[in-house]
């Protein structure tokens, strides 16, 4: 019966880790989205370099999370977020007008990762 208890413990641990992972990804993407939102507010108030600095910091946070993200999330989704970060940062640093859609795209990609990990009836079926 020892084997069965170990299996039951392992399956419970995997479930707990899965729930933890869902919350962790949600919190992480929420924090990153908040960064982008504050960068957008700064940009709209005319502080382009301040916005670029926030996006750069946020991107560093994202890249620091890269290994975890690649292990736990679909690689194509992770790459889309990374690309959106680089695109937005490059637009901000170029000094040209940054379209609202550039901020929206990054926020959408982060939201998509968070949604993907959420346990809902829809995601299960």
């Amino acid at each position, binding site marked *: 019966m020892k*084997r*069965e208890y170990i*299996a*039951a413990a*392992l*399956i419970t641990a995997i479930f707990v880790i899965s729930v933890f992972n869902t919350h962790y990804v949600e919190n992480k993407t929420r924090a990153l989205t908040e960064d982008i939102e504050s960068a957008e507010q700064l940009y709209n108030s005319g502080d382009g370099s301040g916005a670029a600095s926030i996006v750069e910091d946020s991107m560093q946070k994202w890249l620091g999370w890269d290994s975890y993200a690649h292990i*736990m999330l679909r*690689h194509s989704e992770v790459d889309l977020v990374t690309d959106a970060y680089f695109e937005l940062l490059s637009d901000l640093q170029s000094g040209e007008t940054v379209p609202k859609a550039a901020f929206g795209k990054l926020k959408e990609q982060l939201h998509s990762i968070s949604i993907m990990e959420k346990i809902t009836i829809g995601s299960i079926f």
Partner: protein
Amino acid sequence: MILGIVFIRTMIIYLSLLVAMRLMGKRQLGELELSELVITVLISDIAAHPLQDIGIPLMNGVLPIIILLCCELIISGVIVKSSRIKALLCGKPSFLIIDGVINQKEMQKNRFTPDELAEELRSQSVLDISKVKYAILETDGKLNVVLFPPERPLTAGQMQIAEDDTGFPVIVINNGHIIRENLSICGKNEEWLQKELTARKVKSAKDVYLMSVNGTGQIYFAKSEEKNET
């Protein structure tokens, strides 16, 4: 770089599968119960996806294997403890033939056609259904056939012939390698082995393909052809 990733991922999945199948036990390699078949089919399919697409996290392959392995271990443990749950998950053996008469209701229930039954019986050298006392379809899908007593093969016991019990043959040299554990099991030592090899004009165990000893001390000996040719 991609080739390296594919290599490492394949190795990880292969080893995970190997460990999973090993932990599931030898039954998985032979006749499968329903739950075991489901898990075997699922595992092989799940394992293939992260191997084909390196964009899928390896976790998506490894985690389901671990979860299925745990489910299988729990279910097989519960089945051993409870015959009710075993009947629920694996079903019950079905008697397809009783006293030489086909049980058509059971045949229909098990989606077994008369020609399939005849084929199964033929594979067991049974050509006449009326000679079958019982034909039992086991839960692993195997058909066991019990003949009427007059049709059963005669045994030495029935003939009252005294047959010597030669015991189980133990392999002591396997392809040139001495199996010391087996030598001690049959109560022999290397000194005895060397003496037997010398008696067969063989210098060392390396020149022997197979040597076994049974309970009565009878030896089966096969010289290595490879060594003889060179």
